[in-house]
């Protein structure tokens, strides 16, 4: 033990004490990676938890929940009376509305049965307190508000609350105030609780409730009761465990969270390379000490353990520092992310910070584990240092050069394997093999980096000497001469840049595909949807009578009433059912088919035959194609439809079955609309028609009318907003990598003090040495950029061709945005030169006498 302590002291503790700044650099690298992971994890967890929390408040204590394809008809609730003997149940109507008090805020509307509510959900009335006043709560049009919400908007008992709900302006009266607990906490407390009838009227769901929550007495078998309920329920209704709704809520914004997670992991991966880089450098630097210790009989195990301890210490210190930075970053990340989720994905969602404990733990595990993994290779390398030749400068590089053949072969094998994995199908809807292929490309990149460094140095030697003189010649010698160190720096930067280039290409491909899709699917001249206040997303729906009303407006050629709602297949898998007037579709088009056929003709045929169209995500998720049967649970029971075509759709990743409206009305009996497309009569402009519609609407409906061009812009604005965070994260990943280059170059400059001193002694000027280090940084950035372009192309192909289609069911037409890619690569190149400034200065200021005296 004493012996090992001395080894540790000679190799790790002593050097760290002597040069603390040098020891701190890798710690900073890990800290940045850990901070990014902690922040992203925190933001992600907060989103998921906020959705789940809201779902839990609504679900209350329920064990089972009864739901239906169009909700649960109130008369069907009668059949659940038997439950009073073994528990209790409470129906719930839910939806959203917009406050018309000038704030434009979106609120959740929850309709409950006050009598039954207490058994299922917690709801505490603060005011009124007397029995007589409480009796008035049952008056239609009376609502309960959480105290905090009421005080924020200045509402008191008896205050009128103006609303836009179900596409019409209306007004309710505050009857009581609720403590901010239980049900009142749903949607972050922005909630309006009322009786079933009032909620049904506000939301256009008269005669139906959205769910019935069932709470069983202790000891009652949920399975048995579930079977009994299922037996008694009419067709189209089902009973399921209460947790499933929370899970479904968690699925929202899945693509968005996936996006964040992928980039967070990338940042950590780059951080991992930084640790490997730092330990590699320390092994290189301490080869003479290792050789001396080995010659004195120190075992390989002791050498390995000493460096492993160092790596772990760097990981632990970096993790600690990163956790502190993560707390600050997390607040910023959450603010950015929650704004996007609330305004784009779920208008009523209120994202609040979830406990920071799990993200701290996750980041700590990630930081510690990645540091340990990163240290393995260089620590093993340290054990292989031979006692005698290691005293000779440059021996490591000599050894590595000899390994370039096997490295190239292993890299080629990795790429072949990656190509093979990219052809494999997803496992349970997750592209495991696609990610495996990405990992193999990363591995190939790491393997090929030393070869790229050698080739880069050799190919630029003449040109650099010609253009930059002695400094250029020195730079290529430095660059090619420090293979180990430069290869790790090149790998880290190339990986971050490659992923950034791939993301830019993927996002550009998605955007272009979405733009084309918008153009081919948005064929109407105008869109009418319920007024949504401040929200960007659709809030509520429109009454069915708006269809004949719109048809009667002068200048309207045709109206396409569009309806979307949640549905499920025979095995309860969630999907979306959509309804559109196929006659309008047959006239104007608007569902671009994947196989290139004319969607107008297909829609006409489908309408006549009672067939359906399905979206691309549906086809991928359910393994269906044209001519197959699509299964759908309807209020009239399970129905199957022949698929007439598969259309491109980016509206959701669950998959949509699109029915002709007449078929939908027949099966669902739901005449409400989510929005309506309007075709203008020939010669009538969109703007003119919009004015006519507003004039005709008067106060009858509360709608927003959007022109085709505005809607296209809106779609692309939402798209850009969703991916704004991606850009910020790309920036972080590249910044971490550039920090890695700076770290490597600073360490390298410090390590090469004697070389610089010698150069100064031989007559090299400070400028020549500083320029050589800057040019070396340029070479590092340049070779990394070339490697990144190749790896980025592979990443982009995997993201666009494998991971995205397998994850979300979306396929994209590849598009290479040369300008943006060149800008990103140039920025990285510039940043890497900037990263050479400090080490350049360190190198130039080397005191030759002091450095040479050290011998």
């Amino acid at each position: 033990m004493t012996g090992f302590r001395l080894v540790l002291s000679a190799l790790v503790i002593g050097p760290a004490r002597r040069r603390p700044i040098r020891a701190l650099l890798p710690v900073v690298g890990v800290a940045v990676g850990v901070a990014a992971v902690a922040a992203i994890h925190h933001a992600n967890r907060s989103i998921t938890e906020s959705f789940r929390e809201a779902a839990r408040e609504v679900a209350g204590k329920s064990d089972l929940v009864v739901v239906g394809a169009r909700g649960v008809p109130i008369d069907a609730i009668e059949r659940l009376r038997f439950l009073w003997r073994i528990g209790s149940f409470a129906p719930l109507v839910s939806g959203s509305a917009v406050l018309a008090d000038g704030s434009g805020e979106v609120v959740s509307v929850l309709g409950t049965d006050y009598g039954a509510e207490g058994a299922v959900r917690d709801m505490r009335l603060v005011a009124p307190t007397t029995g007589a006043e409480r009796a008035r709560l049952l008056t239609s049009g009376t609502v309960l508000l959480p105290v905090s919400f009421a005080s924020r908007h200045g509402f008191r008992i008896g205050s009128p609350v103006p609303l836009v709900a179900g596409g019409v302006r209306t007004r309710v009266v505050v009857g009581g105030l609720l403590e901010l607990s239980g049900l009142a906490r749903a949607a972050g407390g922005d909630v309006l609780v009322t009786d079933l009838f009032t909620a049904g009227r506000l939301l256009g769901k008269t005669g139906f409730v959205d769910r019935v929550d069932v709470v069983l007495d202790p000891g009652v078998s949920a399975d048995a009761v579930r079977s009994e309920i299922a037996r008694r329920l009419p067709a189209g209704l089902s009973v399921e465990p209460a947790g499933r709704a929370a899970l479904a809520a968690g699925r929202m914004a899945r693509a968005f969270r996936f996006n964040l997670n992928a980039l967070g992991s990338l940042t950590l991966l780059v951080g991992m390379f930084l640790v490997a880089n730092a330990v590699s450098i320390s092994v290189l630097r301490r080869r003479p000490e290792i050789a001396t210790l080995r010659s004195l009989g120190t075992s390989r195990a002791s050498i390995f353990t000493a460096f492993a301890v160092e790596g772990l210490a760097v990981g632990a210190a970096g993790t600690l520092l990163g956790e502190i930075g993560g707390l600050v970053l997390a607040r910023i990340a959450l603010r950015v992310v929650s704004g996007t989720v609330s305004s784009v994905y779920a208008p009523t969602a209120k994202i609040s910070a979830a406990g920071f404990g799990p993200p701290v733990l996750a980041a700590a595990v990630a930081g510690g584990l990645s540091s340990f993994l990163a240290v393995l290779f260089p620590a093993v390398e340290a054990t292989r240092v031979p006692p005698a030749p290691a005293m000779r400068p440059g021996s490591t590089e000599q050894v590595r050069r000899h390994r370039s053949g096997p490295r190239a072969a292993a890299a080629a094998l990795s790429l072949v394997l990656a190509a093979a994995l990219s052809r494999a199908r997803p496992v349970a809807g997750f592209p495991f093999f696609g990610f495996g292929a990405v990992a193999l490309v990363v591995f190939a990149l790491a393997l090929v980096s030393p070869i790229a460094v050698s080739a880069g140095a050799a190919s630029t030697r003449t040109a650099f000497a010609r253009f930059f003189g002695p400094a250029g010649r020195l730079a290529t010698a430095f660059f090619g001469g420090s293979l180990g160190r430069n290869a790790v720096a090149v790998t880290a930067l190339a990986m971050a840049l490659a992923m950034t280039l791939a993301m830019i290409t993927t996002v550009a491909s998605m955007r272009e595909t979405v733009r084309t899709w918008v153009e081919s699917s948005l064929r109407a001249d105008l869109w009418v949807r319920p007024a949504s206040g401040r929200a960007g997303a659709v809030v509520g729906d429109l009454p069915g009578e708006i269809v004949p009303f719109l048809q009667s407006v002068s200048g309207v050629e045709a109206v396409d009433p569009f309806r979307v709602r949640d549905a499920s297949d025979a095995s309860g898998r969630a999907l979306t059912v959509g309804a559109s007037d196929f006659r309008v579709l047959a006239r104007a088009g608007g569902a671009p088919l994947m196989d290139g056929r004319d969607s107008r003709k297909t829609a006409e045929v489908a309408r006549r035959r009672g067939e359906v169209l399905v979206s691309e995500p549906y086809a991928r998720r359910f393994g269906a194609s044209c001519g197959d049967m699509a299964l759908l649970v309807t209020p009239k029971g399970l129905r199957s439809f022949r698929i007439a075509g598969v259309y491109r759709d980016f509206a959701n990743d669950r998959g949509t079955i699109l029915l002709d409206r007449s078929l939908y009305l027949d099966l669902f009996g739901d005449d409400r609309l989510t929005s309506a497309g309007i075709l203008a009569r020939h010669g009538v402009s969109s703007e003119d028609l919009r004015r006519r519609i507003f004039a005709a609407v008067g106060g009858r409906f509360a709608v927003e009318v959007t022109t085709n061009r505005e809607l296209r812009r809106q779609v692309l604005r939402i798209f850009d907003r969703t991916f704004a965070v991606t850009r910020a994260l790309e920036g972080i990943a590249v910044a971490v990598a550039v920090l890695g280059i700076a770290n490597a170059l600073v360490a390298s400059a410090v390590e090469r003090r004697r070389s610089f001193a010698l150069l100064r002694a031989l007559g090299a000027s400070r400028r020549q040495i500083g320029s050589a280090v800057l040019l070396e940084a340029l070479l590092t950035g340049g070779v990394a950029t070339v490697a990144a372009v190749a790896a980025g192309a592979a990443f982009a192909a995997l993201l666009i061709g494998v991971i995205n289609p397998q994850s979300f069911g979306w396929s994209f037409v590849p598009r290479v945005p040369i300008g943006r890619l060149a800008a990103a690569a140039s920025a990285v190149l510039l940043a890497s030169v900037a990263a050479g400034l400090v080490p350049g200065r360190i190198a130039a200021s080397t005191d030759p006498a002091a450095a040479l005296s050290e011998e």
Partner: protein
Amino acid sequence: MSSPDARAAPSSAPAVVCERVSKVYSGVRPVVALDTVDLAVSSGEFLAIVGPSGGGKSTLLHLVAGIDRPTSGSIRVGGRDIGALPESELTLYRRREVGVVFQFFNLLPHLTVRENVELPRLLDGKKDAYLRARELLDRVDLAERGEAHPYELSGGEMQRAAIARGLVTGARLLLADEPTGNLDSRHGEEVLELLDHVRRERGVTLLLATHSPAAARRADRIVELRDGRFS
């Protein structure tokens, strides 16, 4: 061993003149490496500086090489006080007027032997660096080893390459700091032989710091430096 008054060169104008040169390394306990030293070396002379380790030999060579500056006193080389030169001119002095051979060879590991030899001339922007390097490598019997890396050479070969590097700029002043200290006796003898030959054929002034009496015996004159003073 020569007497103290033999420190003055016997004939011709001195190439190097040190007057009352001191070098003190500051610190909690300042160390006096050189204590008011006077020395004159004639053009073309071979001077051996002997003395125990820590006596100030390397410090004196570093000062003459322009790698370090004296704390006080003046060092004139070719009539110029190099201690008073601005940094840019001192750099040019090191580049053009002096060659240094170190005990540990100090070849840059990532450059080939030829590139190492070319380096000082390349730093000066001279186009003939390649030809001069080939010529000098030939002169030191390393013509065949030019494209090898330093780690592929023996100690003697590395030191011969370092001598070629010291001569490549055409400098007339060559400083050798324990050039045989890291070599076995046979290779040490070869290196000394080479130094002596090249300084004769090129008229180079040679200052050799050494522990080795055998090496010192080759010199025209020997001085002993002990505790920062000539004895």
